[in-house]
């Protein structure tokens, strides 16, 4: 579904992505793990078209997309729930979800919204409240819900568990598992490598802009080097 080859991106003079190649197949959950500053978020930004790339190709459903502006990529089905939620604080929960479906013109928008309310009942309860007043966990649910409202073919999740209590982390992870059961394709970026690999089919390990390990999630979970560096296990 998604093929990235030799992708490079820089902030000014500093090259953050130094030739990334990876692929995501339809229906897969792929985890991208690595430490702070490795380039995970930059990669997702480059995929969404909000970070310029200096070299390389991105192919989505057989077509080059690396030259497209952000809104065109959303129209093709690449939706992102960004790091740090980035919800529309002054707008209501309901408006945030409606804006997630900004480019959609079909009649199922209300139905999809109700499905998200079913997935995260707390959002239904607070639908008319200002999104900026939600707790961190609720904002995270809203950010994921907003991305789902865009009818993603590929869902990019950036640090969905960051800063959440263990209980909420489980709830978010369970939501991702249920999305996978529905056939959603997910590229998941996480610092919580253990949790990410446990729910993923495959994983990539990124270090200072390079992919250093790749393989089935179960294999990465038992890889001694990955264990030592990212899972905190000896």
């Amino acid at each position, binding site marked *: 579904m998604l093929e990235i080859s030799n992708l490079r991106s820089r902030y000014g003079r500093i090259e953050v992505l130094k030739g990334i190649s990876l692929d995501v197949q339809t229906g897969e959950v792929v985890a991208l793990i690595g430490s702070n500053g490795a380039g995970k978020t930059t990669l997702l930004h480059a995929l969404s*078209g909000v970070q310029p790339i200096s070299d390389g190709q991105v192919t989505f459903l057989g077509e080059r997309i690396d030259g497209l502006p952000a*809104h065109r990529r*959303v*129209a093709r089905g690449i939706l992102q729930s*960004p790091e740090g939620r*980035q919800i529309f*604080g002054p707008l209501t929960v309901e408006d945030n979800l409606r804006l997630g479906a900004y480019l959609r013109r079909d009649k199922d928008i209300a139905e999809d919204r109700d499905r998200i309310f079913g997935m995260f009942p707390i959002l239904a309860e607070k639908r008319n409240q200002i999104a900026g*007043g939600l707790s*961190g966990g609720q*904002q995270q649910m809203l950010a994921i819900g907003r991305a789902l409202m865009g009818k993603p073919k590929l869902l990019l999740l950036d640090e969905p568990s960051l800063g959440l209590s263990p209980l909420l982390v489980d709830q978010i992870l369970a939501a991702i598992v249920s999305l996978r059961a529905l056939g959603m394709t997910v590229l998941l970026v996480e610092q919580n490598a253990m949790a990410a690999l446990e729910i993923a089919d495959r994983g990539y390990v990124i270090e200072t802009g390079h992919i250093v390990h790749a393989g089935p999630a179960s294999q990465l979970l038992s890889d001694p080097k990955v264990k030592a560096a990212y899972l905190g296990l000896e």
Partner: protein
Amino acid sequence: MPEFFQFLVSGLTIGAVYALVALGFTLVYNASDVVNFAQGEFVMLGGMVTVFVHAAGVPLPLAALVAVIVSVVLGLSLYWLAIAPARGASAVSLIIITIGASILLRGAAQIVFDKQFHKLPAFSGDTPVQMLGAAVQPQSFWVIGGTAVMVLLLYVFLERTLLGKAVLATSANRFAARLVGINTTTIMALAFGGSAAIGGVAGILITPITLTSYDVGTLLALKGFAAAMLGGMGNPLGAVAGGLLLGLLEAFGAGYISSTYKDAFAFIVILAVLFAAPQGLFGRRTIERV
């Protein structure tokens, strides 16, 4: 008491115009973070184009429509030709660009039109209406009513339409707006066009009372900016409240203290606001939990 009411009406009338200019500032600022100091020139254009098109024999409503269209076209040109190519420049650079644009528009108006003062006929006659002992010009009702209609239209657009919500979303979080598929470039162009239209309408409404010439924009931009600051930059309701308040301050200040310093009141206010409450009376308080 009659003079109090007289001052009140004239304050609300001029305040309504400041409110419209401040709304223009707010709309552009929210969508793009640019403080558009060319905002006053659209008020000038609204008045001047109507005067000249009307003088050429076109009926007043049609001339007014032409003036609004000209304002919008120039507002969009300002965005596409001067602001969009400088995307990513610092706020100061963008402000200087808008100041440059305002000088250009003023200079062009001087050549295309002339340097005289011009008047438009009042929309419904010049016979003052007696109210509570004050003589109110009928045009005042047009200005205040027209402003109310513009504010209402803007409110309905922002709160009730998806495109309006996209404008609000862009002002709340431009990055996230791009991630949900909002073309933020279009939204910014829309804000420039919309604020030019608002300015143009303000110019058409007020010209029968205050006259117009090629250089009325500068002072109006400063007053509108002061009003926007007073209300809290970025808050549409604050802009309206700030505009009306500034108009009232001017009218009462000129009436009860000294008309010599009429224009100074606006700037005393802006200084006081900047010193005492930089976020304005209704400044945006961002609530964001981490």
